[in-house]
């Protein structure tokens, strides 16, 4: 069958099996060239193996929960959304969450995902206590920072290439409400946006939405959104009656592929109206429910269809702090010069990252979405070059089209990773992406 990632590009003819037991899973692994697949939410080809894609949807049980310290043990196919619906009304929330809740916990480990609080709390890997991994010889290996630490460290952010992640023990974080106090600050241009980030490093959550159509001294005009978990005292009378409420909202299903021009006129209109409305206001705190704050796009189920039938690609890189201003400006210039539009352009400050393979580094990450066209692919190549020039690196969970040389120049850590795997693994795991980039 044809398999794709969230971007639906590339689509690859691949064998997909959904084992129902550990025995079946081990048998599949023994065939070699296996890769684990969760909910298919990485954008490109990282969870696809032509010969042996193993879907983990049947391993979806929550095994343990400690209500004293939040330690949660799950099988890797459990969705983050299930964790939230199960534990939020008991006062627990993931410490790190990506921009969609429809990812599996196994996928969160393999990509070592980050959230809007990376500058403060680091990536998801920081909150993992231990992992159970099925390695190439069919053994279930428990690993943590203390036992089998080598496998543990390489698995976090290792794109599923050390083995099939079977169980994950990770910490949830106590919260008193399901609301976020959000403050939105309009930024005149990219320098201003970075200034706002740097002034607000103590804010738990921060992210900026860039209007990629503005140019000149308005280049990088954006809305910087800061957030904190609200306390009970922040809530109004009605909200206080059920402070941990989980509202089930109607999701909108995108019924067909959109023609791509609709997007930008729409986003720009929305952006402008918020931007100018905020400019007039002084105090901009408001309470937003967790779902709207963290997962705005999850409202639109299948929002990837908005990009048309050819699919979409996301470009996401991080630039080191000292190069960020120059580099990001150069990228936005390239974007504006190419006359390509990105529907969602997101900028975020990262903190330090102490781990073997994780994407973040202290600096700024820029993420752009493009419908797949020749022009946009060329633009992304240009953006690759700028990333290299400013000593940045790329997020593999988003990648679907980078070339091997670019990747190798950007990230030498993967050479060590390869050595580790070839010394320790009999039958290697592989994905279309790992072959493309020689991970």
């Amino acid at each position: 069958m044809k398999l794709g990632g969230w971007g639906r590009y590339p689509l690859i003819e691949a064998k997909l099996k959904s084992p129902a037991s550990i025995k079946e899973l081990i048998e599949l692994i023994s065939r070699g060239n296996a890769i684990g697949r969760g909910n298919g939410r990485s954008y490109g080809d990282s969870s696809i193996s032509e010969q042996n894609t193993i879907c983990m949807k049947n391993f979806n049980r929550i095994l343990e929960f400690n209500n004293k310290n939040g330690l949660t043990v799950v099988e890797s196919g459990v969705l983050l959304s299930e964790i939230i619906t199960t534990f939020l009304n008991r006062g627990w929330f993931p410490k790190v969450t990506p921009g969609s809740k429809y990812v599996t916990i196994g996928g969160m480990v393999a990509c070592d995902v980050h959230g809007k609080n990376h500058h403060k709390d680091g990536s998801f890997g920081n909150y993992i206590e231990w992992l159970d991994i099925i390695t190439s010889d069919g053994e279930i290996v428990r690993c943590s920072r203390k036992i089998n630490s080598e496998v543990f460290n390489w698995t976090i952010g290792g794109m599923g290439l050390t083995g099939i992640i079977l169980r994950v023990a990770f910490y949830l974080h106590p919260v008193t409400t399901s609301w976020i106090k959000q403050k939105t600050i309009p930024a005149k241009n990219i320098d201003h946006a970075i200034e706002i980030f740097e002034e607000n490093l103590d804010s738990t959550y921060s992210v900026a939405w860039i209007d990629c159509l503005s140019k000149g001294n308005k280049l990088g005009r954006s809305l910087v959104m800061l957030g904190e978990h609200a306390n009970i005292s922040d809530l109004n009378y009605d909200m206080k009656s059920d402070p941990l409420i989980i509202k089930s909202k109607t999701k909108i299903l995108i019924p067909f592929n959109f023609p791509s021009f609709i997007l930008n006129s729409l986003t720009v209109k929305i952006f402008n109206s918020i931007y100018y409305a905020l400019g007039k206001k002084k105090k901009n705190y408001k309470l937003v429910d967790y779902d709207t704050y963290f997962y705005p796009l999850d409202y639109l189920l299948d929002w990837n269809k908005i990009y048309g039938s050819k699919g979409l690609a996301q470009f996401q890189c991080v630039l080191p702090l000292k190069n960020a201003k120059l580099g990001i400006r150069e990228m936005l210039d390239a974007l504006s010069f190419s006359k390509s539009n990105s529907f969602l352009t997101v900028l975020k400050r990262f903190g330090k990252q102490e781990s073997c393979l994780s994407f973040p580094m202290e600096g700024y990450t820029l993420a752009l979405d493009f419908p797949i066209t020749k022009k946009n692919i060329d633009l992304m190549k240009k953006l690759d070059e700028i990333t290299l020039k400013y000593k940045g690196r790329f997020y593999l969970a988003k990648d679907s089209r980078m070339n091997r040389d670019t990747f190798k120049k950007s990230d030498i850590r993967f050479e060590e990773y390869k050595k580790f795997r070839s010394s320790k693994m009999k039958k290697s795991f592989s994905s279309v992406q790992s072959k493309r980039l020689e991970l």
Partner: protein
Amino acid sequence: MSKDTVLIIGARSDIAISAAHCFAKEGYDIQLAARNKSSLNADKSDIELRYQVGVSLYNFDALDIDSHEHFVSSLPKLPIVAICAVGYMGVQTKNERDLLAAVNVMRSNFEGPASILAVLANHFEQRGSGTLVGISSVAGERGRAKNYVYGSAKAGFSAFLSGLRNRLAKKGVHVITVLPGFVETKMTKEISLPSKLTAKPDEVAIAILNAVKKKHNIIYVKKIWLLIMKLIRSIPEQFFKKMKL
């Protein structure tokens, strides 16, 4: 007040586990019965953690008829709803040549399920309340060359359920026959099924919950099966016998 309890027999099947989730979500405590109960430990913790209900596990062998009365009478609490999801398809070509295999399929789909529901029926009748749910099959509506061993056992089971319903209708006990049609489960994962006719285990579970609430008698999970089976039943035997269905 202690919560009502739902017993699910043959609990390792995908439909059974989905039904357990569905009823637990409604606040029922769950009793799961299957051979080798320890294989259900992960499901037990999963359901308990998600829905904050009690889940208990029991060893149960559908083919060990002699044990059924003791199994029911030793349950710590007589359930308000009992769902029998026991079933085994076997391989038709093997069933045609190997009589022991065929008998095993017949016993697994008819004798075992009928026996345990008979025992439960008597207990429910004595109490004067409760709902019994039997998961039968559209394969029991007319014998076909492709699966008549399995189908004949399900036909027997469907007739048993219908009789039981008739007997208990005035005794406060309700009996539901579930005819799922194709379902995407472990049992069928190697067969390619037409997606429009195939239900997910969750859909079957929701249909069961709904039928229990609304006291339906016979349910087809995908309504189209009602039509398909009407058609299949209406074909005269002289033509039917030559058809490949």
